[in-house]
């Protein structure tokens, strides 16, 4: 085991410990996605009868992938908070004074975050199936959906990490992450692009979350559409490259 992997393991366990010892957190990661799914599936129950939905039988199956991406999106919107707290109370310095790989500190945040995202996605999938939805691609497809969700969550967490590491201010961090909430609302999480005005359609061609949603949706409702899947992987990859690259830069700047 390399030093980096071992240190990430210890620091990741610390992150998980911190997460699970606040009872609201484990309750939240189960309840938050389920409430989302329940509310939206009831709210828009009859929307599939609109022509743009092109023969979707169940809005639940249509909605579940969008809900996974949406939930992950919001769950990682505060992910910079841990590092910020460590920075403020001096723990980050304590870790830096230890003979460890500096980036293991970052990885120790991101790996548990990926698990958290996959877990929440799993909760939504399980509930949808219990309520009668089907995953057309079966277990492998379900795993693909969770992997995409986790990948997207880790990539998008940069939107909170960057302002946290640059501003070192809680309020600034939450305000700046909030500016990007429309990205999720304007996506194809709830309605297909076909029903959107032209400008929104155009925006969604560059909206990474929509690519992720479309790929998950294909896995859920149609089958292995490699073109759509490939596009999603590229979208997550590019997003991760840009946002986590910037996070790395900001982390480096803060710790040198």
């Amino acid at each position: 085991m390399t030093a980096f992997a071992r240190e990430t393991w210890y620091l990741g366990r610390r992150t998980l410990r911190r997460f699970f010892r606040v009872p609201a957190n484990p309750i939240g990661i189960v309840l938050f996605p389920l409430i989302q799914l329940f509310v939206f599936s009831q709210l828009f129950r009859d929307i599939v009868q609109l022509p743009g939905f092109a023969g979707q039988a169940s809005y639940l199956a249509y909605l579940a992938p969008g809900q996974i991406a949406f939930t992950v999106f919001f769950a990682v919107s505060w992910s910079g908070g841990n590092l910020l707290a460590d920075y403020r109370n001096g723990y980050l310095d304590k870790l830096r004074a230890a003979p460890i790989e500096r980036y293991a500190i970052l990885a120790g945040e991101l790996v548990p975050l990926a698990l958290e995202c996959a877990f929440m996605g799993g909760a939504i999938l399980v509930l949808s199936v219990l309520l009668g939805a089907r995953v057309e691609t079966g277990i492998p497809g379900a795993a693909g959906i969770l992997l995409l969700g986790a990948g997207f969550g880790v990539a998008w967490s940069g939107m909170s990490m960057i302002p946290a590491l640059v501003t070192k201010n809680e309020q600034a961090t939450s305000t700046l992450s909030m500016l990007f909430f429309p990205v999720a609302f304007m996506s194809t999480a709830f309605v297909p692009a076909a029903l959107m005005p032209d400008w929104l359609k155009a925006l969604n061609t560059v909206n990474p979350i929509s690519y992720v949603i479309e790929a998950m949706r294909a896995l859920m409702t149609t089958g292995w559409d490699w073109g759509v899947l490939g596009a999603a992987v590229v979208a997550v990859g590019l997003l991760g490259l840009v946002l986590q690259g910037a996070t790395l830069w900001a982390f480096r700047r803060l710790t040198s």
Partner: protein
Amino acid sequence: MDSPSTVAGMDPRARQAPAIEAEGLVKVYRGDVRAVDGIDVRVERGEFFGFLGPNGAGKTTTIRILTTLLRPTAGRARVLGIDVVAQPGQVRRRIGFAMQAVALENLATGRENLELIGRLHRVPGPDLRRRVDELLELMGLAAVADKLAGTYSGGMRRRLDLATALVHRPDVLFLDEPTEGLDPQSRAALWEELARINREGTTMLLTTHYLEEADRLCGRLAIIDGGRIAVSGAPVELKRAIGSDEVNLRLGAGGADDDLARQQDAIVGLLDGFEPLRGLERTADGVRLAVVDADRAVPELLRRLDGDGLHVRGLTIAQPSLDDVFLRHTGRRIRDEQADQPLVLGW
């Protein structure tokens, strides 16, 4: 990360190198603030060395450079012969650092806090368990070892934080204001603990603005002000170098102010030619004298003052304190300095 083999193959000269050497350390922060302005210091192995100075003197910046957390703008520093800029990983492996702010994982127990830091320092499993138990015992935390650190009192948190700096048995321990914010009992207990750690062979470098702390603990200290070392040496020698003690005479005036003035004038005359006298100052109720070796000089002093019309009601002798040393070398009293931390606004 440097591999362990480089430790074994370390330059043999490094084994005998002093614990800490710094030459011409300078740190300039953004906005042209010279926090450290040319510090040279050498601390031998096994010493208990202190940086004494007011807030903002550059103590914390210096200790952060020595512990590899900050890069110097100029100059170089070696800890145990290892350059802090070139080989920070090697330095980190062999030092412990208890920072000014206690940094603990509040949602972990005392034991878990120690175990995590120990693992990050690669203390092997069975050894780590033993070491953690030993430290919990030593710091008086055994009874609360499995309670969350967030529930600890201020003194317990300090001790746990200190234990995390010791878990890997460092050769050099850096302490930045280790007793800041502690009540007097906890402070005294921690002092004893620190002295004991030093006796067992760990080199200590401490920063403080408490005169008593520096006086009690440090075998040698450097008085630091404005990013420079004003003077350094053993506390006893520094105080002796002041050269004189302070003798305060309280005079019983027969009621009128002019009587006090008359007595003060008389003393000036009576002490003319008194060899140990270095200075005389009138006070609100008598005179203050600077006297060399006051303990021995006082009998002769009293004999001279045994004249008509003088009513000496009280006499106190004060040995010079580190505050006097500070005043002598910086022109200010360390206690005057209550520099508020500047409010940092941004975003």
